[in-house]
């Protein structure tokens, strides 16, 4: 019986035996001790609090500046608004005069020469109602304004 010619290599441990199994626990590397971490945390937080305080001061300053600027400009805005209002009243008057020039006996600001408000002294500014104010403007502007007025 012919024996197997191929030299068999038995699966054996390497000469000298296996290396010892490393079963010892390898803890994660610690970079900082607890005290260092606490100190670092306190340091960073203190610095951040200082920066926050500075930032907060700056924000307060900005708010005050914005408020003062608004207060400073408010009278001018009011004056501009009044001026625009009066201009529009004049325009309304002129438009009405132009529109009613062919109607005999029509006097602007009155009803055929008859005063509308009897008890008011002459030259009193009677503020027109909303629709009267926009009576002679373009419908689109009137519509836009109405939309804003109703929605705001």
């Amino acid at each position, binding site marked *: 019986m012919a024996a197997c010619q191929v030299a068999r290599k038995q699966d054996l441990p390497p000469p000298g035996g296996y290396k010892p199994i490393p079963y010892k626990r390898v803890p994660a590397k610690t970079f900082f001790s607890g005290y260092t971490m606490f100190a670092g945390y306190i340091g960073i937080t203190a610095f*951040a609090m200082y920066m926050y305080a500075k930032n907060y001061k700056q924000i307060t300053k900005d708010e005050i500046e914005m408020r003062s600027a608004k207060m400073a400009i408010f009278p001018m805005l009011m004056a501009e608004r009044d001026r625009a209002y009066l201009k529009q009243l004049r325009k309304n008057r002129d438009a009405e005069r132009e529109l009613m020039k062919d109607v005999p006996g029509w006097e602007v600001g009155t009803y055929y020469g008859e005063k509308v408000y009897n008890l008011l002294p002459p030259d009193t500014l009677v503020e027109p109602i909303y629709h009267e104010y926009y009576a002679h403007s373009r419908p689109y502007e009137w519509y836009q304004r109405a939309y804003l007025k109703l929605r705001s």
Partner: protein
Amino acid sequence: MYMFDIYLIMIGLLILIIGVLVGVAYLTLLERKVLGYIQIRKGPNKVGIVGILQPFSDAIKLFTKEQTYPNFSNYICYYFSPVVSFILSLMIWLLIPYYFNLISFNLGVLFFLCCTSLGVYTVMVAGWSSNSNYALLGGLRAVAQTISYEVSLALILMSSIIMIMDFNLLKFFIFQEYLWFFFLMFPLSLCWMSSSLAETNRTPFDFAEGESELVSGFNIEYSSGGFALIFLAEYSSILFMSMLFVLLYLGGFNLSILFYLKLSFISFLFIWVRGTLPRYRYDKLMYLAWKSYLPISLNFLLFFLGFKILLL
């Protein structure tokens, strides 16, 4: 508000929605790529140039499949809860600080809390209405986890709100111009990060759908379109949470591309965590919320309240 403004808002919303959806699509691609390289293999790299079109291919596949539904499910609830959750997660994006003030929220933080709280209901209803034990249990797990972490999330948020004394998310920028809140409230920001991981059911805390040990969670009965919607909602909430982290702790919305880079980095962090950390234990997760984060956030709240009063 004229019609023109309304058109502008509609266009803005459309751009926002498209941006969010494309962002979500590429977040999924990024996740698969990053996980692939973490596990020393390539991610999807066949569709399109180097896998660029993979998310769209997936979406087309998902939406063209037949949607099955369990015979004994509560059909209306079953059908609509993914839809509602998707709509909620898109609605929450209204809060994004837009370049030209799409909608300027003065109470943005409250809106965020409302939307995330409502999102829990959709998970619960999805789990319950499937009428399957696995879905029900998965839904219960997810709900318990999410509402627990919502508490700590809200309390951590309180400290930041105290620091800016406003609910407007845009305000976070002007208070962080000198130094990020990340340094001011470092431990809290880490708490926030892990709470938002738990809130979005992400990996170290993904007990809603632990694929290997637990049967997939509340969404087990969902297929095709419904599943895609749940998936989209989850990923868009991940993106939103990372945006919120940037807003709260990394300097806020500073009108520069840096904001979006930070956002991408944080959402990369979510993926990195998934590729690195093993899953937590459920009871430990609950104890973490109620025994660690709750006291920590309350103590920090007191601390920052005192600091703010000191400054006034």
